[in-house]
């Protein structure tokens, strides 16, 4: 997120506090976008047991499908978003099923290399179709609401709300439903779960559905607040993996907290170092976490 207009508070300390509040709000916004990617990534890492580098590209799919309906076909944004997320699911879920579940490979390294291939294909298919320029949804500009030093546009409020609702929904799904129980069981021990008679194939289909749904929605919200380009998924690989790893990979709840840590750390860091090093902050957090707290800041499984 770019730094918006500064708050009107004058003087040293007041200005610093205003700045800090502004960065915190931006950080929480970034975190809600990262969380939509990181929760799905963490879920698939726990259940399918490999690092899906193509996961952030599902965000790009959602954003570009929405752009196509919205700016090219001319569908109003809200309908375009729904259609776009649907289209991303129609492409993303079969691709994930085919590439990660159906191929006769099982090794983590093999699946990792395959996910690099999937990422190449998705990114460049979009590049082929839409070109490499920065694109924007056609949505009306909106005035921000101002509460003291806090300024939020309705789109930003919507982003926070949608992220919160979806993350809560995933929480309820994992903790309250049979599917959630099966997914958690597979993450613990896939072989035993299968022996116990659970339909692992169907659970994995549902898992990819959830992962792509969250990511595509995150991508649409990303496009609503910023501009989109074919590399957006690739550029999000490090921040999203950082959020998932800081939160304890394989632990979708942790990923929400991890996203918050990364989002805030990235924004707060701009007080001290140039903004172009934001990505380095995410990488540093991930590296430190893997070295000293490899199970994530919150430990546990």
């Amino acid at each position, binding site marked *: 997120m770019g730094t918006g207009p500064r708050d009107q508070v004058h003087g040293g300390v007041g200005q610093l506090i205003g700045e800090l509040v502004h960065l915190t709000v931006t950080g929480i916004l970034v975190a809600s976008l990262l969380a939509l990617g990181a929760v799905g990534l963490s879920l698939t890492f726990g259940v399918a047991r490999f690092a899906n580098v193509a996961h952030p590209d599902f965000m790009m799919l959602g954003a570009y499908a929405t752009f196509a309906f919205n700016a090219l076909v001319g569908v109003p944004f809200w309908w375009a978003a729904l259609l776009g997320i649907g289209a991303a699911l129609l492409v993303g879920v079969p691709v994930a099923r085919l590439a990660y579940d159906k191929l006769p490979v099982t090794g983590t*390294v*093999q699946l990792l290399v*395959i996910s690099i291939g999937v990422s*190449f294909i998705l990114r460049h298919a979009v*590049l082929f179709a839409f070109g490499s320029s920065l694109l924007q949804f056609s949505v009306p500009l909106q005035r921000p609401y101002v509460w003291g030093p806090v300024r939020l546009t309705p789109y930003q409020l919507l982003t926070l709300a949608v992220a919160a609702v979806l993350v809560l929904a995933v929480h309820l799904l994992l903790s309250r439903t049979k599917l959630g129980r099966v997914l958690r069981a597979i993450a613990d021990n896939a072989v035993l779960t299968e022996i116990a008679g659970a339909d692992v194939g169907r659970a994995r289909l549902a898992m990819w559905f959830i992962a792509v749904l969250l990511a595509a929605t995150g991508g649409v919200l990303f496009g609503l607040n910023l501009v989109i380009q074919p590399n957006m998924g690739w550029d999000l690989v490090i921040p999203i*993996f950082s959020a998932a790893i800081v939160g304890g990979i394989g632990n979708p709840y942790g990923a929400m907290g991890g996203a918050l840590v990364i989002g805030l750390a990235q924004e707060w860091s701009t007080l001290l170092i140039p903004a172009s*090093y934001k990505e*380095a902050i995410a990488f540093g957090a991930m590296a430190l976490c893997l070295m000293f707290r490899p199970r994530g800041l919150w430990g546990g499984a």
Partner: protein
Amino acid sequence: MTDYLIALATIIGIQVLLTLGLTLHYGITGLVNFGHVAFYALGAYASALLTLAGVPFMVAMGAGVVLAVAASLLVGTATLRLREDYFAILTLGFSELLRLLLLNVRDLTRGALGIPGIPRPWRAVSGVPDHVAYLGLVLAAVAIAFVLSEILARSPLGRTLRAIRDDDQAAMALGKDVLRFRLTALGWGAALAAVAGSLWAHYVTYVVPDQFTPEITFYTWMAMIIGGPGSMRGAVWGTAVLFVVLEGTRFAKDVMPGLDAPRLAALRQIVIGLGLIVLTVYLRKLGGRTRPRVAPAHVRT
């Protein structure tokens, strides 16, 4: 046409050095290095900056090698204890971080402007054209690297590295210092990549961070997979096949008129992605660590 073939051979030769390095990393030792391009970039930039400061070519190249090996040992010490997929993500992140630094430390690297005017060594060998002499230099480097790599792979050190790749716990039980051996392999491979980077910089006489994207890493992976990981001869012909095919796709516009250059480039990347997937499935021995995980999730099994 002859000039074109000489240029192609020079580029393939430089790329073979990269593939030989990755073969030492992954093919022999089983290190999932997704950040190979970082060592290439360090070799290129160090060599470029030093020769422009008046240091002789060979010394500058040596400095690049030292720098890349030091970086590889630093990265390796911090991350080699981790599971292989974490190592993969961290090395990928490291290479992106380095590119970010090259883009932003403008006082040293001129950022996105790049460094032009890097001198070629021995500009005038009597009677021999510049580019032919340079091809000779590259081929000499490839020959030396090939022989050294073969010797290393066949030596007791190579046997230990392969033993670590196949079962690191057994190697550990036999009293081998697994981390030290892995670092040795990482350092040798990084050295080869740095030589390649230096040769690249002085060949194209211009370096810019955009030349050092992760795509270089994955081209190298693909070349290694084509030739069969673990074989030095395979590294050579795998690289040659990949680059001849890639060059061949440049002529695709004769078959598919009406496609502009960016679209053709995107198509090439899609082919690369498909190739990675197909070859990974076809060569199942790639990273076939499929035995059940017994250690805790964050420890390398």
